[in-house]
């Protein structure tokens, strides 16, 4: 087969000879019957029917003809393209942008949605969420979990994990705050990843009281034990309790939560002592052959059993299973979908521009096509030729696009909210390059097919030949006009989407957080405590520390809170009137629960609206007190004064008196609308782990070092975490959204510029088509303004219609991005008008240039050059 391309010429010559011989014999035959030699020759030629056609037919039947023809097409295409280098350059640049953006996005999608999770047979892994009345409602409780595990047979391993909990690890050279996850003995076998050193937990350890065994992560192993094998069997001191290290996980292992070590859940596990306390996540591996739906039905059945047995805590409570992958990427999905749509539209716009270029070029090559057709090329052959050109160009564009993709990719990586444990990082690898190649070839075919069809159609040739030079526009231009209107519509749609996001961003940036971010700094503080330390002792340690900090020069105020706003989220407890019975979980009013020291609210700037702040008197032994947020006050006591009221909350069996109401604050994140908060007095419970909150008079960063020194001097065994400013925390919270907005903005602007170019292109071509007409008009007395307005009218008509369609399209689809918007309606008029005006301005400028040129057409030159 490889020989053929070279043998082809040899065969051609042979065929030539053979045909010549045929002709000679035919002439001879005719002259023998007495015909005049010249006449015989004429008739023979007619009978032969045209050597080129015959040769073409023979060539096509050759083996490897396809390859031969393809190579020939490629060589021919390259020759043609060299001659139109300008066209090729514009083509490649335009498409490279579109292909590049899509390729970069594909690498992200592939990493998030298509690539393998680093566990064994990850498609059989499921995660879960508890439901109330069918609505998703977060983690499940330990006791419920164990019942599910006992009663369900659909799983080859059903495990649970707690979120990562901060613990003080003491002993050794220095104390450290580590993250610990409580888990069942079989988490690692279920995932299919076993400890690299030592052993996994045993089933028996779950039944022990105080098993106190841990498996540590690779990083901790290096940090604490220098990577030595002596780690196995060594002791770790966490929160005053001794644990034995039994295993080390392989490097890079993560699952759901970033943590330093895993502790087995044993009988003494402090988590979720009650059935209606929910802190755990359940995951499992489906048995081979069991589908998610089957497992779900079994789970539903067990949930019903639990509902019957524990009506107080399990009414209407269920569990919903999700494929693990879906669960892990759920929060990125909306942004990702938006980006997919945007890059898709961008590519479409680029394709339209490019198709327009080809249509124009095709019209110029009509005579070439007609001649080649006469020489024997079939229409199919011509089309194949043109498509080859198209595909070569798009493949080059694809290569350039890969470079563009790297650029986009770099931006995306730095900005998207990825990096969650276990969520893969996108890379550009073989598959992605293959995607770029595939998309290039497909684009080349799509973009080339219509111009190829038009360029080789007999009808079009005839029309072009006979068309008068004063005609308005050929159908080719009409097609391009329609395409440009479509481009305008899509571009406007993107602009409007961008406008909506920008408005959301503005709202987000200026939302009332409910607390101060200027000059406020916070850091975690914990000291090891065991059963020996009394509540009073723990309270005293924090109180004396806070007093010392307050005395430090430059500090305006200081306090402590168990969860710093934005940095530390969650933990919502039920709260109800003390006089009423405990409500069912799904009916409970929930509030984000924290414990605070006196002075917390003034330090962080949350206004005290009614009543009083905690005081030193709100200590252990005195009547339990609580402060609630305004939203919670409204929910609990819509028609009376909350002060002095008695409430019960969480799992305490005693009542609390409401002593104060504070303003609402975005403690659960800037975008959160969970305004209900419950504040308990630290003095009454003495939590060993709290966030120090400090308001400084000047720049908090300057004081950070001084404060750290002070804290560490006071207690060597205590651990102070990194000090972060509230400003930085809030800023980081908005990063993810900001990125999406910037990405969409960038893509929309590029799309708009491409559309403007397309608009300009059509009008410029239109003007050049009508040069002679304009020349005549000018000669007959038309004023430049007349011609300009002619073109402008056409241009504005295209833009106007496009705008209208764009508006309609945007209003229909903006509902889809509603989840991303913040305090903005999908039909926000400012975004729509803003987008339209911005785009409209650029579009009008794009129309003005050819319109102005039209006015300057020299009539003499135009008429002469026809």
């Amino acid at each position, binding site marked *: 087969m490889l020989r053929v391309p070279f043998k082809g010429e040899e065969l051609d010559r042979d065929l030539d000879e*053979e045909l010549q011989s045929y002709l000679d014999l035919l002439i*001879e035959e005719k002259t023998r019957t007495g015909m005049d030699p010249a006449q015989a020759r004429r008739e023979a030629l007619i009978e*032969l029917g045209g050597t080129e056609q015959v040769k073409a037919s023979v060539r096509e*039947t050759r083996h490897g003809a396809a390859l031969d023809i393809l190579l020939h097409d490629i060589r021919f295409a390259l020759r043609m393209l060299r001659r139109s280098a300008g066209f090729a350059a514009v083509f490649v640049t335009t498409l490279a942008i579109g292909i590049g953006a899509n390729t970069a996005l594909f690498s992200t999608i592939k990493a998030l949605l298509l690539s393998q999770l680093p566990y064994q047979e990850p498609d059989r892994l499921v995660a879960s969420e508890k439901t109330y009345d069918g609505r998703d409602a977060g983690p499940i409780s330990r006791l419920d979990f164990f019942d599910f595990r006992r009663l369900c047979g659909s799983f080859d391993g059903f495990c649970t994990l707690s979120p990562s909990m901060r613990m003080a690890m003491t002993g050794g050279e220095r104390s450290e705050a580590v993250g610990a996850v409580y888990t069942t003995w079989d988490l690692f076998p279920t995932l299919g990843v076993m400890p690299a050193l030592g052993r996994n937990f045993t089933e028996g350890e779950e039944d022990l009281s105080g098993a106190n065994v841990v498996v540590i992560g690779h990083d901790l192993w290096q940090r604490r034990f220098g990577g030595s094998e002596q780690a196995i069997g060594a002791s770790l001191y966490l929160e005053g309790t001794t644990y034995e290290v039994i295993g080390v996980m392989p490097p890079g292992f993560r699952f759901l939560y970033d943590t330093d070590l895993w502790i087995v859940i044993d009988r003494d596990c402090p988590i979720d002592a009650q059935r209606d306390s929910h802190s755990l996540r359940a995951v499992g591996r489906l048995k081979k052959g069991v589908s998610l739906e089957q497992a779900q039905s079994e789970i539903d059945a067990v949930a019903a059993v639990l509902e019957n047995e524990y009506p107080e805590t399990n009414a209407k409570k269920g569990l919903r299973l999700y494929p693990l992958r879906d669960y892990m990427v759920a929060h990125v999905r909306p942004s990702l979908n938006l980006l997919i749509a945007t890059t898709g539209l961008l590519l479409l716009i680029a394709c339209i521009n490019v198709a327009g270029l080809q249509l124009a070029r095709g019209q110029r090559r009509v005579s070439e096509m007609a001649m080649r057709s006469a020489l024997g090329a079939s229409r199919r052959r011509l089309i194949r030729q043109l498509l080859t050109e198209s595909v070569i160009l798009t493949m080059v564009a694809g290569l350039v696009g890969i470079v563009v993709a790297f650029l986009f990719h770099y931006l995306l990586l730095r900005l998207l909210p990825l990096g969650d444990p276990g969520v893969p990082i996108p890379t550009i690898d073989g598959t992605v390059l293959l995607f770029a190649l595939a998309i290039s070839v497909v684009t080349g075919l799509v973009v080339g097919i219509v111009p190829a069809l038009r360029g080789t159609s007999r009808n079009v040739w005839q029309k072009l030949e006979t068309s008068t030079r004063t005609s308005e526009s050929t159908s080719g231009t009409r097609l391009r006009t329609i395409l440009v209107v479509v481009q305008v519509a899509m571009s406007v749609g993107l602009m409007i989407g961008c406008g909506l996001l920008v408005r959301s961003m503005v709202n987000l940036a200026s939302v009332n957080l409910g607390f101060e971010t200027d000059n406020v700094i916070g850091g975690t503080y914990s000291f090891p405590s065991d059963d020996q330390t009394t509540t009073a002792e723990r309270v005293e340690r924090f109180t004396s520390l806070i007093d010392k900090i307050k005395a430090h020069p430059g500090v305006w105020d200081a306090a402590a809170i168990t969860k710093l706003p934005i940095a530390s989220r969650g933990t919502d407890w039920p709260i109800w009137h003390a006089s009423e019975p405990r409500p069912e979980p799904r009916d409970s009013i929930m509030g984000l629960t924290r414990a605070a020291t006196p002075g917390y609210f003034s330090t962080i700037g949350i206004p005290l609206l009614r009543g009083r702040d905690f005081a030193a008197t709100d200590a252990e032994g005195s009547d339990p007190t609580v402060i609630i947020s305004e939203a919670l006050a409204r929910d609990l006591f819509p028609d009376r004064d909350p002060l002095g009221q008695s409430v019960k909350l969480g799992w305490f069996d005693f009542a609390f008196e409401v002593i104060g109401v504070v303003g609402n604050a975005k403690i659960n994140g800037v975008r959160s609308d969970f305004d209900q908060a419950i504040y308990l007095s630290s003095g009454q419970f003495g939590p060993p782990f709290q966030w120090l909150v400090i308001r400084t008079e000047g720049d908090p960063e300057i004081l950070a070092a001084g404060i750290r020194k002070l804290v560490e001097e006071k207690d060597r065994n205590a651990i102070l975490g990194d000090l972060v400013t509230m400003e930085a925390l809030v800023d980081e919270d908005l990063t993810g959204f900001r990125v999406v907005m910037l990405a969409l903005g960038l893509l929309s602007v590029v799309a708009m510029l491409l559309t403007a170019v397309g608009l300009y292109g059509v009008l410029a071509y239109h003007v050049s088509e009508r040069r002679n007409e304009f020349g005549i008009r000018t000669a007959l007395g038309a004023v430049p303004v007349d011609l300009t307005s002619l073109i402008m009218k056409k241009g504005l008509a295209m833009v106007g219609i496009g705008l209208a369609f764009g508006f309609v399209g945007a209003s229909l689809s903006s509902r889809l991005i509603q989840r991303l918007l913040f305090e903005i309606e999908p039909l926000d008029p400012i975004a729509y008008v803003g987008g339209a005006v911005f785009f409209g301005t650029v579009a009008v400028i794009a129309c003005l240039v050819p319109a102005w040129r039209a006015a300057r057409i020299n009539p003499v030159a135009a008429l002469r050059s026809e």
Partner: protein
Amino acid sequence: MVENKTEILRGTLDMLILKTISLAPMHGLGISRRIEQITNGVFQVKPGSLFPALHRMEQEGWVSGEWGESENNRRAKYYELTDAGKARLGEEQKGWSRLVLTIGKVLEAN
């Protein structure tokens, strides 16, 4: 532009050419004339159909072509049936008979 004859005719043409040169090696024009003669002018094989067919069969190995001299000492390429071609001709003939029988049955059916 050359139009392709229908598929049925292509297979039939192959068979006719093979049969024609099974009797004696012939050059292109000769094959055309022979077929025209035997069918009393019904089948007129134009060069546009003949040469593609000949070259295709040459590639398949059913015929082999060699340059030689015609009756009047003109150079011409003569085609000869190969053993494979002989076998092919046999198959084509069988297939053709079967086709004729089957169509006949259809036409006779009530």
